[in-house]
């Protein structure tokens, strides 16, 4: 039996990886926005894991008689109307926000890519595959014909509020984006010579679609993951703001803003401002990371 060991010189492969990493650092150094975005991602992920443990107060426990206190040394971001510490809640919120956004985006990514490969690979074919390809696209058209937020609201309204239903609604809404970018990439990849070579070698169409076309068509969808997460966080907050998302009192930026909104009028600006800032910075950060990754993958924009 022949033993298989690493080919192409493990040394050279390791060196190539190191060179790629240096390239990446040099690229990031020229882009403060990208670095800012990366920091936001790192911080939110860290808070999603540790937020509730490092919070100075319990994020869901009201302190009796301590409602609507302004920011102070004791309560850095003040307390809200029921006496919960705003700072503790702001840093605990990424757990639920990120969990929802990540899982929804992941589902949308997988679903969108699979459907995109099918619809792109079989576009222009004959018979059932073509019908499937067209049906997928028309489905996406219908989904995208509705205003995003109204549609999410309707979905949650249909299934009732709750974390899983928010995930389902967001995943559903995001599928067409991943589907379309993947379909476009598939159109290019399926014309490349190695696809025909694979066909000539007697590979089955399904195998060609998923082994040869799909991995080479993942780039655009991958570049959309990060902004997709940002968008999902924003939508989660929006749904919670109108009471169709995460039930209170779970710490979540959108529901915190909605709790704090009435107090804004009466001068207690801190209850809504801080969660709002956190939300804005996070969405911006994820979008910037997405832009950076897209530029990094495009050789022309690397400089």
């Amino acid at each position, binding site marked *: *039996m*022949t*033993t*298989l*060991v*690493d*080919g*192409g010189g493990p040394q*050279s*492969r390791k060196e190539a990886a190191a060179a790629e990493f240096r390239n990446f650092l040099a690229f990031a150094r020229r882009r403060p926005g990208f670095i800012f975005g990366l920091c936001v991602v790192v911080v939110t992920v860290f808070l999603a894991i540790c937020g509730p443990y490092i919070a100075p107060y319990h994020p869901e426990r009201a302190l009796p008689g301590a409602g609507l206190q302004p920011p102070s040394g004791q309560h850095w971001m003040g307390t809200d109307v029921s006496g919960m510490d705003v700072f503790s809640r702001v840093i605990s919120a990424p757990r639920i926000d990120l969990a929802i956004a990540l899982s929804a985006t992941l589902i949308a990514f997988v679903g969108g890519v699979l459907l995109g490969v099918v619809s792109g690979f079989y576009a*222009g074919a004959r018979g059932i595959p073509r019908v499937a390809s067209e049906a997928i696209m028309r489905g996406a058209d219908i989904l995208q014909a509705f205003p995003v937020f109204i549609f999410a609201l309707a979905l949650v309204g249909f299934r009732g509020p709750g974390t899983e239903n928010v995930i389902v609604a967001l995943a559903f809404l995001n599928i067409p984006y991943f589907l379309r970018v993947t379909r476009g990439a598939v159109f290019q990849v399926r014309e*490349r*010579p*190695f696809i*025909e*070579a*694979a*066909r*000539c*070698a*007697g*590979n*089955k*169409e399904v*195998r060609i679609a998923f*082994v*040869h076309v799909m*991995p*080479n068509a993942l780039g655009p969808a991958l570049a959309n993951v990060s902004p997709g997460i940002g968008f999902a966080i924003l939508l989660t907050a929006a749904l919670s703001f109108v009471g169709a998302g995460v039930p209170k009192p779970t710490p979540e930026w959108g529901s915190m803003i909605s709790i704090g909104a009435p107090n804004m009028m009466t001068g207690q600006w801190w209850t809504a401002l801080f969660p709002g800032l956190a939300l804005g910075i996070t969405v911006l950060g994820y979008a910037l990371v997405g832009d950076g990754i897209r530029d990094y993958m495009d050789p022309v924009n690397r400089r």
Partner: protein
Amino acid sequence: MEPLLAVDDVRVSFEKESGAVAVLNGVDLSVQPGESIGIVGESGAGKTVLVRTILNLLQEPWKVHQGQIRFDGEDLLAKQEEELRQIRGVKIALTSPEPRKQLNPLVRVGEQLAHGIRAHRKITRKEALELAVEALESVGIPDPHLRVRSYPHELSGGMCQRVVIAMALSHSPKLLLADEPTAGLDVTIARQILDLMAELVHEFGSSLMLVSRDMGVVAHYCQRVAVMYAGQIVEVGETEVFYGAAAHPYSRHLLRAARAARDDRRAAAATVEARAAAAHGCAYTPRCPVAITACEQSTPALEPVEDGHAARCFRRGEVARGEVQA
């Protein structure tokens, strides 16, 4: 002898919204078992389209209008996709130009070889990988047990072509269609690749259809030569006869150009014109130095000059004997 492959009056066009462009205008060609035949002709003559038509790989907007392709007693153009899958790669294999583009950049070459092997044999992935190592060894790749784990970008162009050849020959096909196997390779590597291909084809007793623009390569590796021009075979004959007494003015022109080893500007300038004129009369008339009135009025058939040597030219006899300067 019953030919292995018989292409009979195949007509293929490229359908555009503004109308169809005829690309193959009635190609007739046969390949005997075990023989090597060279297809030569300029860019746009239809060489690659012919190869793809044989494998029935053309999809929309390409359209096969008429003709028959018989391979081993079966009509390839009438086959369903699943039947074709049993022929492609097993009985007829193809190598296309630019080897690096023939390989999936994200899959290790050993895996790609194994895919091809497992597509037609019920064996495990591990066994297929071992066969892949052997296949790489047979095409002269050093350290094949290391190379199966390489990605295409880690191999040179010549190495990639060897991998592609290994893939094409992994089921000992009866016919190997080699479309410009040396395009993009430098001369010494090209020589090695062609020698290897010829040797393996001989070993398996396969037939070889070598598509090339290089008259020298074809002369060296093929027993017969077919010249394509504007979607037709304009001349076909034994290599020695052909190189000694080419009977079509275009063949003469090609040979002269090859000998002069330089680009003929006139040829390049006249290509489009020639295609436009292909509708009536001999397609080569606009460029032909010995054209007569009949050439513009009707298309000559592929008729014999002598045994086994035929040309599509009214003046084939005179040209072959060198009585007119074509």
